[in-house]
């Protein structure tokens, strides 16, 4: 297995792959040769991060828009690293629940921030993987030398969610706009029915299955026989670890208070396994199997924003800024959940083995695992799949099980079950926290401390990444 060669069998025709390589090679020539060897690319480093505390929906940030929260998180980052009037190479951010008027959300937030108005920005959207994908995309630009500095970010408000008019009303309004005469306008208006006036609120249902994300996960949780007790224990650890991290001051340089909050409002430092055990199941109640997913072991709807400052080593040095970790590599995967081949949130179970194979690494080579807790069942199903011989052989093309992780290395400073999960903001929360943990850890057994990030997303997608300490 070589570091750069594709080592996991990929289901793409060899001819197509060769053609793509040769076409790109012809166009890029020498540059591609350099690009193909990752050791010769320059590093993209995480300088630091800043987020606002995450708030349960309908709480402290009810009236704050995505742009408000993103700007607040950006301004905290700018203040922390002295970026006032700085022209950053590029800022990328996104929101999952996004008003159509916010087509330039990130650029508008940049214009409202203390950054130089000459900082370009773009919006990105990949469901819950949005935040991590902004990190990977911008890190790649830094590695290629296209930019020297970047801010990756994400924001979401479930409180200030867009509400669309019904399809019926929308079509009438558009036709009305096109109608030239009064009689034609009246004709168009006469098509309106009372039901057309009901608004169309966003939901977490998958368009192709009609099942909510929770119901999808309930299927997966049952399929992998994840117990209620195991899920509650994961949720309990998340709260306990996050509370301990706050108490230890871990978030002091990762977070700026906003709207009166200085901690995530979902955090229940005093929760217990007994309390969690009393909660009634909310998902999977109509399955044959026992319903195990409760409000305690599922993430609540949350509002919040996070940012990560990325840079080349030269830029960080020139600005006298810290270098916490490098963004080594990332991988996206998707599964065919529509007809139940795999669970909706199981794509990281495929992305991680592919990414690790590319780097000739195993799960034993990692010191921290940051597996996003969409639901406790998601994390545990993923771990169960990796430990399953059959899954390893038939789905991952390995000789046996992919492997298991040391549970004491998992989400050691808490994760989404405790902090909450403002969809696009979760990636930035994880990357900034992990980079700090890695930097603190430094070297392990003569090599840089290494961390794995895994984030599942709607649409059966997942994005994962490797970070290493600096």
């Amino acid at each position, binding site marked *: 297995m070589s570091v750069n060669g594709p080592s996991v069998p990929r289901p793409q025709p060899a001819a197509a792959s060769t053609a793509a390589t040769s076409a790109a090679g012809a166009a890029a020539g020498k540059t591609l040769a350099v690009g193909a060897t990752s050791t010769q690319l320059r590093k993209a480093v995480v300088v630091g991060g800043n987020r606002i505390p995450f708030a349960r929906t309908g709480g402290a940030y009810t009236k704050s*828009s995505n742009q408000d929260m993103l700007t*607040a998180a950006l301004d905290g980052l700018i203040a922390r690293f002295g970026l006032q*009037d700085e022209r950053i190479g590029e800022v990328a951010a996104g929101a999952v629940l996004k008003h159509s008027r916010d087509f330039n959300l990130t650029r508008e937030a940049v214009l409202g921030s203390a950054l130089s108005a000459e900082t370009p920005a773009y919006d990105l959207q990949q469901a819950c993987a949005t935040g991590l994908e902004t990190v990977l995309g911008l890190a790649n630009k830094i590695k290629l030398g296209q930019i020297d500095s970047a801010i990756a970010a994400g924001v979401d408000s479930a409180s200030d969610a867009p509400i669309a008019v019904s399809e019926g009303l929308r079509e009438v309004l558009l036709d009305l706009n096109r109608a030239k005469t009064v009689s034609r306008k009246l004709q168009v208006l006469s098509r309106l029915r009372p039901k057309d006036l009901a608004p169309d609120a966003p939901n977490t249902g998958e368009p192709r299955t009609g099942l909510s994300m929770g119901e999808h996960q309930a299927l997966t949780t049952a399929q992998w026989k994840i117990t209620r007790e195991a899920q509650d224990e994961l949720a309990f650890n998340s709260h306990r670890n996050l509370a301990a991290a706050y108490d230890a001051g871990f978030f002091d340089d990762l977070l700026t208070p906003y709207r009166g909050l200085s901690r995530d409002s979902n955090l229940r430092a005093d929760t217990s396994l007994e309390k969690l055990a009393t909660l009634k199941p909310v998902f999977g109640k109509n399955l044959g199997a026992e319903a195990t997913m409760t409000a305690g072991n599922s993430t609540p709807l949350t509002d919040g924003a996070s940012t990560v400052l990325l840079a080349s080593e030269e830029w960080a040095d020139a600005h006298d800024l810290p270098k916490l970790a490098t963004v080594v590599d990332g991988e996206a995967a998707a599964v065919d959940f529509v007809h139940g081949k795999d669970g909706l949130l199981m794509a990281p179970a495929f992305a991680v083995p592919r990414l690790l194979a590319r780097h000739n690494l195993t799960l034993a080579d990692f010191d921290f695992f940051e597996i996003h807790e969409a639901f406790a069942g998601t994390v545990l199903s993923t771990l169960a799949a990796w430990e399953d011989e059959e899954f390893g052989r038939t789905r991952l093309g390995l000789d046996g099980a992919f492997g298991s992780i040391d549970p004491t290395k998992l989400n050691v400073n808490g994760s989404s079950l405790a902090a909450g999960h403002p969809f696009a903001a979760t990636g930035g929360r994880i990357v900034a926290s992990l980079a700090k943990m890695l930097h603190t850890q430094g070297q392990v057994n003569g090599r840089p401390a290494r961390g794995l990030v895994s984030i599942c997303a709607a649409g059966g997608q997942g994005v994962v990444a490797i970070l290493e300490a600096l």
Partner: protein
Amino acid sequence: MSGSQTVILGEMPALSKLYVNAAAAAARRRVLGTHGGTELPDYTHEVRSVKAGVANLTAYQHLIGESASDVLPAGFIHALAFPLAMSVMNRDDFPLPLLGMIHLSNKVVQSAPVLFTQALDIRARVENLRGHRAGTQLDVVAEVRAAGQAAVGQEEVRWRGVSTYLAKGVFLPGIDKPSVPVTPPPFAVPDPTALWQLGVDTGRAYAAVSGDFNPIHLSVLTAKALGMRRSLAHGMYLASRALADVGAVRGDSFRWDVAFEAPVFLPARVALDISTVQADGGAWQRSDYVAWNPLSGRRHFTGSVTALP
């Protein structure tokens, strides 16, 4: 603000009561004549531990185009202190009629940022009664400090606002007399950097977030009752939007001036030009702004936001 007597109010006075009281005082004066005073009351009104409401703050920020940060916009602090300033002008010993006074200009020095979580001590007084070609003018001075620092003595003023008002057509004996207006130099209309579309409800919307329910801003009918042909936009709404348009480049401390000219009758389109002046090193030094009616070319207001030395 030394030398004068301080009256500590238990809570921020209600503007609605002040306006009703002012209307009653105006009626009384119409019947009984003015009380003949020619000096401003030498009293400072103070309210302690004032806190901004976060819902109101967010609504204000959204209305005038500021990002909803935790820092109180300078114009929001003006609105916060406004009822106290009004209460001084509403005193029985205040020599000018409060209703119908015209806001001529406003000067604010924001020395340090004020967070919405901070409790504030706010003081207001009136001073500098002086002549104007069209009547009598005076300054209302408001100061904002972090609460609980009164014992320290020379506590830091975080925000200081001087609002100059004109009592049009009121000439107090011994202070002033009518004079011929000085013709200002013609206004050369610049290229606009922004164009505001102000709906007929602009005054009501700003009243809702600022608490300033002066009838001349609320509707055509209430404005006509006070002799205006239509309702008009609050001057501080316009100036606060200009301040928001200058943007984050201003930082947390700055000087913010505005001089009002032709009123903005609603609904309206207002053209705005903001020009930036940079220091030698390229750092932001000042943003000058001017707003005008794009149809008539009449100037509505001018002002600037300046870095503090």
